[in-house]
Every structure is written in C-alpha cells, then in structure tokens.
C-alpha cells in the first residue's frame, strides 16, 4: 500500500464512526460523520465538550483508527495503512499543534523544532540549522537556545507551530491552539495558522472552543453528539499574515 500523498487533495470522510470500549461500556463518539475539507482554507471544528471533535481530528491525523466508515486524507485511504505506514505518513505529511504545546522539556526551542526533520532522516546539524530559520520567521530569533520552561505560553505555542511546519507538511492539525494562552497571543497564533492554511496545497484543521478565533476561519463545522450539526463557509475577518514557511 502506497503512502505517497497526492497534491491538491483535501480530507474526506464518509459514514465515519468511532466507538470506545466494548459491550455495555461502549461509547459511540462519532456517529456517521460525512465531511469534505478542501486545501487552501482554514477549517475550524467546534462544538460542546464530548461532541467528538478531538476524536475526529485524531482520526484525520492518522493517530486513531475509526471503527467504521471511509477516510481519505490527502488522497490516501488511511484505513488501509499499517501502523508503520501511518507513522511514516504522519512524519512526512502531518504537522501537529497541541493544546499543551507538548514540547520536549529538555530540548531547546531549536532542537524541539528540529525533531520532525530528525524523524524524517535529517542529521541533527542540518535539522537544527533549518529549525533556527523557521524560529526566526515566527519571531523567536532571540529564544532559539531557550528551554521550554524559559518561554512564555505564547512563545511555546510559536515554537510548537514552528515545529508543526518545519517539514512543510500538507496537513496541519491543531487541537485547541489558543486555549492555553492569552487573547492577544492567541490572535497572533491564529494568524500564523491561517497563513499556513492559505497555501493552496495545504489542508489546515483546528479544533477550538474559543469563539474569538472564529473570525480566522474560512469554514466552521459544528459537531454535536458525534454528528456534523452545522457547516458554514465564512469570510475571514483577519488575513494579516506573519508567517512565511521556509
């Protein structure tokens, strides 16, 4: 089974379901989600807690297997991939932004950003040199050698975004990217994410509870009780980019 990703293809789900547990303890998190996300736009997944947002984004990122349904990500049927092929696919094509940043605490900012490149086979020297350039582009040239514990929440999230983009992935998934930072910083973070989303061959999906960032979206999908309850295209209010990928 090939893991090559065809360009200019987005994300498509049909009849996607996901169950946790078995028997009486079974919980159905997704109940037949049908979804199409196109490249070149920023899609927000919103909805109340427990509606299946995180489950859906985990499946789209290839970190969780669906119970049933079809999932095509960037032209690849990820259900057909082995665990190893999924990992290879994620390494090459997916960039992650986590709610709690998930930076490795003992690595400097530059080293953290270099990790995806190292996973893709770069030497440490080359990977860190490349990472430094990306960090500069997100305004962290002064904090290249800082440990995560020496950075503010906003700076850590910038490092996390730089890490998500350093290997130029075609799919960017962000889980509550602004929930752990203040409003002003959250604004800047969303600008960065939107800048990536505007690339024509990239797909960007973000899960959020934060209604203040809705204005950055091209499209907002509302989930309720494991189903798509509402889907609307919106005109982004903010397009001022700060980020230029290396």
């Amino acid at each position, binding site marked *: 089974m090939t893991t090559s990703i065809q360009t200019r293809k987005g994300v498509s789900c049909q009849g996607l379901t996901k169950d946790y547990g078995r028997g009486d303890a079974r919980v159905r998190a997704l109940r037949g989600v049908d979804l199409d996300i196109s490249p070149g736009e920023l899609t927000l997944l919103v909805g109340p807690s427990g509606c299946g947002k*995180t*489950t859906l*984004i*985990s499946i789209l*990122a290839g*970190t*969780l297997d669906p119970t049933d349904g079809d999932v095509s990500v960037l032209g690849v049927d990820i259900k057909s991939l082995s*665990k*190893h092929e999924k*990992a*290879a*696919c*994620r*390494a*090459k094509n*997916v960039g*992650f932004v*986590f*709610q*709690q940043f*998930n930076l*490795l*605490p*003992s*690595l400097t900012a530059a*080293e953290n950003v270099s*990790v*995806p490149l*190292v*996973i*893709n086979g770069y030497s*440490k020297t080359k990977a860190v040199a490349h990472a430094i350039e990306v960090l500069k582009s997100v305004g962290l040239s002064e904090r290249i050698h800082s440990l995560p514990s020496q950075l503010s929440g906003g700076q850590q999230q910038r490092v996390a975004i730089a890490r998500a983009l350093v290997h130029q992935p075609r799919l960017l998934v962000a*889980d509550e990217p602004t929930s752990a930072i203040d409003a002003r910083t959250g604004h800047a973070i969303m600008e960065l994410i939107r800048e990536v989303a505007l690339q024509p061959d990239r797909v960007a999906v973000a899960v959020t509870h934060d209604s203040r960032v809705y204005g950055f979206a091209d499209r907002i999908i509302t989930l309720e009780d494991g189903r798509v309850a509402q889907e609307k295209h919106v005109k982004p209010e903010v397009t001022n980019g700060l980020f230029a990928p290396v």
Partner: protein
Amino acid sequence: MTWIALKMLMGDKSKYFAIVFGVSFACFLIAEQSAIFCGVMLRTTSQIRDTHGGDIWVMNSDVRYVDDLKPISDDDLYRVRSVPGVAWAVNLYRGQGQAQLANGTYQGLILMGLDDASLTGAPTHMLVGKIGDLQIPDAILVDEAGFYQMWPGESLRTGKVIEMNQRRAVVVGVYRASQTFMTMPIIYTRFSQATLFVPPTPTGRLMPFVLAKVQPGMDSSDVAERIHDRTGLKALTNEGFMQLTMTYYLQHTGIPLNFGTTVVLAFLVGSAIAGQTFYLFTVENLKQFGTLNAMGMSDRRIVSMILIQGFVVGGIGYGVGVGLATLYGIFSQSAMPLLAFFLPWQVLAVTAVAMIFIVMMASLLSIRRVLVLEPAVVFQGGA
C-alpha cells in the same frame, strides 16, 4: 535520534541522578556481596596460597580439602621424587595442635612443619625475625594475628615461649599470613620439630603432604597426573588444590546458601530500586514518547531510544556501583582487616550480567507501556 534520547534522559538532573543512583546501588550491592562471598571462599585456601615454593601437592587419595588431614607413608616422599618430571619433593606437615601459654591457658593452633633442610613453604612476609632462625632448636614462627591472639596488647617480638605436647617452643619470628577461614594461630616450625609438638598417631604416620617442584619446561598438570598414575596418591597443582578445597566448602557447608541468599536479596532489592526508578522515568515521559509517536516516529525508533537510555544509565550505574564496591574493598581492608573481600573479574562479569538483566527488564516493561500508547492521547491534554 540518540541525542534526543540522551537529552530526554539527562534533561531533568534530579530524575537522572535518581535513576543512576538506583542502578549504581544495585550494582554496588551485587558486587559487594559477591566479593565478600568470594573473599570468604578464598580464605579457605589461604594456607595453600601462603605455601610457596612447590608446584604440586601430593596427598592421600581420599583428601577432600586442605584441612582434611590423612597422613601418608614416609616412603611416598621417595616415590614422588622418582617420578619423571619432578625436580624435587619435600615433606610438609600440617596439623592441629594445642599450646599452653605462660599464664596456664590453652590455645588451639595450626601447626606447619617444613622440610628441615630447605624450609620449603616458609612464609615470605616476615615482620620480626628471620626464617633461617627456624634452624634453632625448639624454634617456631607465629603469624601476626596469632601473636596478638595469644599475647594481646603486647608488641610483636621474639623470645615468647609456649608449650606444646609438653615441649618448649620459642618464638623466633613473626610473619604476616593471609586471612584464614579459621581464626587459630598458625605456627611454622621444622618437620622434625613438628612431629615432637604433637602426640604420636596410632599408625605412626605424620606426613599429610608432599610438596613437589616440576622440572623447568614441564607442565605441572601433566606431572601431577603422572605422580597420581605412578603412586596412586592424589596429586594436584596449587590451583587444583584450591579448587578442590573451595568445592568442598561450597558443597558441604551452608556458606553458598547463606551468601547466595544475601546476593539474591541484593539483586532483588537492587533490581526493584533500579527497575522501578527507570520504569517510573519512562512512564513520566510517556507524554513525550506519545508526542514523538504522533509526529511519526516509528515504534522501533522509540524502542531504540528507551534501550539507549536504559543502557546508558546501566553503563554509568555499573561503573559507579562497581567503583564504589572496589573503594569499599580497598578501605575496608585497612579499616576492617577481618572482612573478607575479593573482587575477581568473574564478580564484575556477574554484576554486568545482572545489570543488563535489570536494565532489560525495566526497559521491556517501559517499552510495553509506550507501545500500547495510542498516539491520539496527545490530543487529550496529556498522555
């Protein structure tokens, strides 16, 4: 990838030192207890090691260890001398005697009788007096520990007198002996003198050993085998006799069981400490491994990272633990001379094997936790 594993390992200094301490402590316990066991076993052979000059010990064929004294015929000395490959052979007395001190008390002792002419097998580390003075009538040499045992509080000197088998014996020298398994004084004298210091035996035989030297260029084991074939006596090289003695103590005393229990306990305690600290370290890093896995790092590389971390910690812990055990041995020899401590390479090898086992077990448990981790957990606010 290795550098990420090492940075993860050493990034949190307190955790890192806790793991290294755990492995070091485990290695120290195993090496130290094993070394004491080896030291105790080595002491059972100290009399053999302290008897210099000969290459082969010849004895009754039923002898099972160095203290198992079964006298052989005086003629056997000549029969051994006649075996091809033997350069020379001398008689050697070894037995237990009893001394009466000047204050009237009695003291059990080990009596060694050396060949009158050559004094072959005499101690080499004299503290007071000369070996040659054994040629003086009634002369004896006493080991340092034995001297203090018989005359506590007195400084080492010659001229002290004891009585054995109603015969006067005069101390003409004090020597330093290896620590023995028994705690009795070890007295050296001439063979002819030794036979007077003990009561006669029913058989009239008094010679338990013949010490033989092989001719230059000959193999000791070959000559020993030849002596056995020609005389029917048991003939063993120094190493062979030490092995026989240690084997007897291993098989017929509770020492291996008692020390084995201690060593196993040390291993279990050390394993628990080292294994648990390393396992907890990995569990605390699950979120990081989950993040790496989500970002596309393969299971195989994550397993490699954990093994690298385990073996780096194991290697450092092994070095520190064995180093501490060695220092303990060095300092204990001067501070506690009675402590038996011997650290041969076999103990280092056993400790290394134990360390590898501990690290492998801890790593495998940790790896299992990491491998069952769904990468999706990183989306749920932590792993």
